[in-house]
């Protein structure tokens, strides 16, 4: 089956996105959830770059930079929150954070 390179990239991006999504749903350690979010963002990046090669426009690669910058901000703040959470509750499992009963 002759499948073009960027189309294969979109399929891989789909697989990576679902792996990341399942990772968030299944792992309860907050650090692993953040790593899974990074996997999902990378999958989105791959989809953007593949789409840019597929349509022969450069916009996808430009958007990839913005996604990367936003991922950096989100990772920074998420990790700062993890640090302060660990200091307050001394746990890193999402199952232990049930004071609000929800």
């Amino acid at each position, binding site marked *: 089956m002759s499948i073009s*390179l*960027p*189309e*294969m*990239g*979109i*399929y*891989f991006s*789909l*697989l*990576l996105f*679902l*792996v*990341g*999504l*399942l*990772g968030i749903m*299944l792992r309860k*350690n907050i*650090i*692993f959830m*953040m*790593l*899974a979010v*990074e*996997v999902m963002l*990378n999958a989105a*990046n*791959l989809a953007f*770059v*593949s789409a*840019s*090669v*597929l*349509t*022969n*426009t*450069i*916009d996808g*690669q*430009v958007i*990839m*930079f*913005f996604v*990367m*910058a*936003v*991922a*950096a*901000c989100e*990772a*920074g*703040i998420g*990790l*700062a929150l*993890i*640090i*302060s959470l660990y200091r307050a509750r001394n746990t*890193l*499992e999402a199952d232990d954070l049930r004071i609000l009963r929800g």
Partner: protein
Amino acid sequence: MLTQASFFILGLCSVFLSIVMLTRKWPVTAAMLLIVVMMMLAGMYGVLGAHFSAVSQILVYAGAIMVVFVFVIMLLNIPTNELRYGRVTLFEWLLIFFGVCIAVLLGTRVGQGYLMIESTAARAHARAPYYPVSFNENVKNVSSLLFTDYLWAFELVSFLILAAIVGSVVIAKKARVNHVNKSS
């Protein structure tokens, strides 16, 4: 032929390694595996011809963001017996099965969605100036688009990064207890 094979191998390895990464017990191992996944993704961008994206993926993602991850994981210094790592329950197997079903469903739908690529491409090509993907002028095309059409987004993202820097420093600081001065 070689490019297709290398792209396929890189893609398969990245999906497989990300599955392995999310089933590890130690966070540091998972972070290192994620770095390898990111480098494989950078390789895929390089095979696709977007080498500026590949280099900046390694520079920013694998060389800066993951360094922050690794720092935080090492500084938190979680003792090993507190890492909860158990067997996969039935509910989790059901979730994985439904995830695979969604992948299959979307995969075939995505295959049908590619018929819209031509019209999208035609609309993008009709807008002038139109920057094509070219191997020898990749940096020039990306940066000329970044500073003309996406200038607002660029400046706003720089504000976002500034806010994130300030926010993460403030959030991660230890709360200072105000000592009341006893004057007698």
